[in-house]
């Protein structure tokens, strides 16, 4: 018996007349498409991803700016007149230089400039690319390693489970942010070298691996519990009775039933990873300048909160909207893939 059969049974339980003929994936997709809030969030996410991917297009073709190069002596156009990007105070003692605020003109410093005279809108789009990429890659590492470790631990049990579970308990014992900050602080100084592998301190791979690794227990623990539960189910015991090998049990009976859990975890871990990346970058131990991420832009904006709050607010809003969309989508995916949850929600 396979996961597909389980899915069909569950679908029948859900009272779907077409369920007997449809695959569980098709059923899940149908349920997801019916979830309007989740679909709106998918739209929001697609829009954010498309905007972020178009960052070079915006920077070079629309705003005509290089968001990685300081432009402290530059000028821009406001109401048809050239004005300096960094405005020198001329009142009183003449202290302070303030970056230009939002012009709301898509061609000229739409969201204003940061302390280096760089276009905040262009950096926001480039920063979004890095934040999304780091979040997605870290979430993929977390889900992949978490699933592998959880399945091995739950399926084989005994000493293997003991060693793996205790190792993960050690990681679990640290507050996750403290662990991520400690690892980043150590590795950001000299990068990471292990045999032939070397990651430079400015590489985006560093935050990806750090964030990806610290969250592994968050995925592997529930997966392990689910595998232990599956191991005792009738269809697995029947397969064992028929002489199925461990390999066949894993590939044909356990993994197909676990993969939905991993899929449900992915958007949630993506949201958490993005928040962690923003936190690390805000502490200067994530993405390194001149690279940008939403976290680094908030850090840049922190020094301008009093005069130019847009610099910090814009990436803050971007993170909030993206994480909200991912969480709502994650709930939708869970509802779609877990029919019992669906039953609960329609009761």
């Amino acid at each position, binding site marked *: 018996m396979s996961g597909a059969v389980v899915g069909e049974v569950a679908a029948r339980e859900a009272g779907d007349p077409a369920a007997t003929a449809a695959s569980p994936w098709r059923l899940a997709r149908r349920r997801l498409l019916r979830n309007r809030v989740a679909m709106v969030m998918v739209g929001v996410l697609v829009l954010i991803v498309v905007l972020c991917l178009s960052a070079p297009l915006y920077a070079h073709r629309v705003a005509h700016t290089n968001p990685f190069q300081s432009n402290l002596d530059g000028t821009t156009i406001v109401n048809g007149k050239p004005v300096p990007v960094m405005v*020198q105070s001329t009142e*009183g003692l003449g202290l*302070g230089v303030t970056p230009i605020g939002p012009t709301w003109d898509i061609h000229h410093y739409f969201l204003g400039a940061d302390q280096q005279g760089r276009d905040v809108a262009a950096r926001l789009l480039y920063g979004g690319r890095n934040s999304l990429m780091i979040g997605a890659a870290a979430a993929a590492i977390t889900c992949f390693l978490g699933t592998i470790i959880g399945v091995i631990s739950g399926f084989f049990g005994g000493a293997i489970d003991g060693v793996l579970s205790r190792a993960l308990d050690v990681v679990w014992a640290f507050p996750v942010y403290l662990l991520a900050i400690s690892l980043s602080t150590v590795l950001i100084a000299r990068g990471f070298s292990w045999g032939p592998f070397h990651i430079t301190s400015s590489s985006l791979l560093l935050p990806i691996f750090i964030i990806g690794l610290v969250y592994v227990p968050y995925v592997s623990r529930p997966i392990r519990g689910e595998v232990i539960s599956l191991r005792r189910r009738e269809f697995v015991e029947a397969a064992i009775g028929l002489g199925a090998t461990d390999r066949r049990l894993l590939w044909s009976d356990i993994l197909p039933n676990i993969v939905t859990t991993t899929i449900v975890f992915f958007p949630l871990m993506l949201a958490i990873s993005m928040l962690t990346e923003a936190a690390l970058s805000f502490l200067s131990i994530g993405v390194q300048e001149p690279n940008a991420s939403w976290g680094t832009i908030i850090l840049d904006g922190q020094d301008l909160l009093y*005069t130019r709050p847009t610099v910090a607010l814009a990436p803050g809003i971007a993170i909030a909207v993206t994480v909200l969309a991912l969480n709502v989508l994650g709930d939708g995916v869970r509802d779609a893939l877990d029919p019992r949850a669906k039953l609960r929600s329609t009761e």
Partner: protein
Amino acid sequence: MKDRKTLPAVLLAAAIAVVAVGSSSARSADHKGGTLKLLAKAAGGTLDPQVNYTLQYWQLYQATYDGLLAFKKAGGDQAFEVVPDLASGYRISKDGKTWVFTLRKGIKFSNGKPVTVQDVVSSFQRIFKVKSPTSGGFYAGIVGADKCLKTPATCTLAGGVVGNAKANTVTIHLTAPDPEFKFKLAVPHASIVPASSPPTDAGTKPLPTTGPYYFASYDPNKQLVMKRNPYFKEWSHDAAPAGYPDEITQKFGLTVEAQITAIENGQYDWTLESPPADRLNELGTKYASQTHVETLTAFWYAPMNVNIPPFNNLKARQAVNYAIDRNALVKIFGGPKLAVPSCQVLPPGFPGYHAYCPYTKNPGATWSAPDVAKAKKLVQESGRKGAKVTVLSSDDEVNKAVGVYLASVLNQIGFKATAKTISGNIFFTYAQNTKNKVQINVQQWYQDYPAASDFLHILFGCESFHPGSDSSINIAGFCNKPINNQMHKALALESENFPAANKLWSKIDRQVTDQSPMATLFTPRHIDFVSKRVGNFTFSKQFYWLVDQSWVQ
């Protein structure tokens, strides 16, 4: 012959002056009292005056500790003048190697015990016992110092510092004449503390003081409290004038933004921190009368490690100098009222200063504009194009912004640069240690005393380069033997012919600038933002605001 008509006028003027001085001192007495409330983001570490090397506490030591000599407690350039403090006077032998100080009588520590010759001798030994950061630099020329540096615990400075209780004198013997020795005796590391002081860093436990105030309590997580020294009687207005407030406190922990707001609201009187960039305009307009901007003898610079790629190539280093838009950096610092572009080591107005700037579009005395085309050409010629560079800076707002700007410039001229920040708590020592392979970083240097050697010899002399050590202030690792020999020549010349020595320092300044072990960025100015109630603000160019000389009522 005297003019008869002028005599009555002179007498009248004298009478007016006496009345004026009398009423002025009466007015001054009216201002005595109250608590001056200072703020700082964090504590400045140990309170031991012979160990601490921060401006934060050196500023407070002016009202607490005394040495044999002191910088005059006065505003402006007068503050560079060295005057007798615990010593009533001193004489120097013809060969410049023997300094004899006569100790003043009747001065007591804040614990009530008198200051004796033994306290002075033991204080000099203690400089080495506590491994004062300048023991190997400022005081290494005292006879016996070499032994003390090797085995600090048993330091006696035998034959180096000799006390004569009967004559009430202390004699210091030097291995070679040192015309800058008077400056070195006037900094806090040469403070006189009781002979009973521990031979280790006193840390948070305050040592008895001789000045108008003593440290009543110190909790680095909370605050520092200074109270009037009950045993203090003013012996020299120039060296140790009595202060106005009854109590001075320095509270730690508030963010800089919160500190500025608290001062605006009159809850506190001053902050150690530089105001954030986004509050400068507000301070300069709404609070202009409470904002004091002062010129400093200091410079911001970016040392380039001359011993590792890519800056082990002269052209690569010069390219950085040509490419930097110093006006842009001035903007980062708050505008032209707060910083002035510079290309050389010595700051304006300093002994040996002669305006020089080869790294500009029109080379000459002053910087005018970057020459990016020349910089790109030099990078190409250096063969370092495409080299990876990490620009390191401290994590505070301005340092970080300067680091990011430098990375941007390096990328513009052909390097592959990233900017990295590390905590200000470890940055200074981290950047000094060659093991960390720092290629280029953002630094500031504020004078210890007014002599060209304090910039040129300390920052770029071979003797200041200690590979593998956290204490290697020659961060660029620049050791050019011919230039270093000239530095020694200039030091020796100072005692014979000071103007000639300064002329030589000026030449050395140009040579070091040409060799580009650093990119000089700008000369900063200093902002003090005080509350409305603070009066008689006096800024010493040597130790900045003289806190106890201001009143709060």
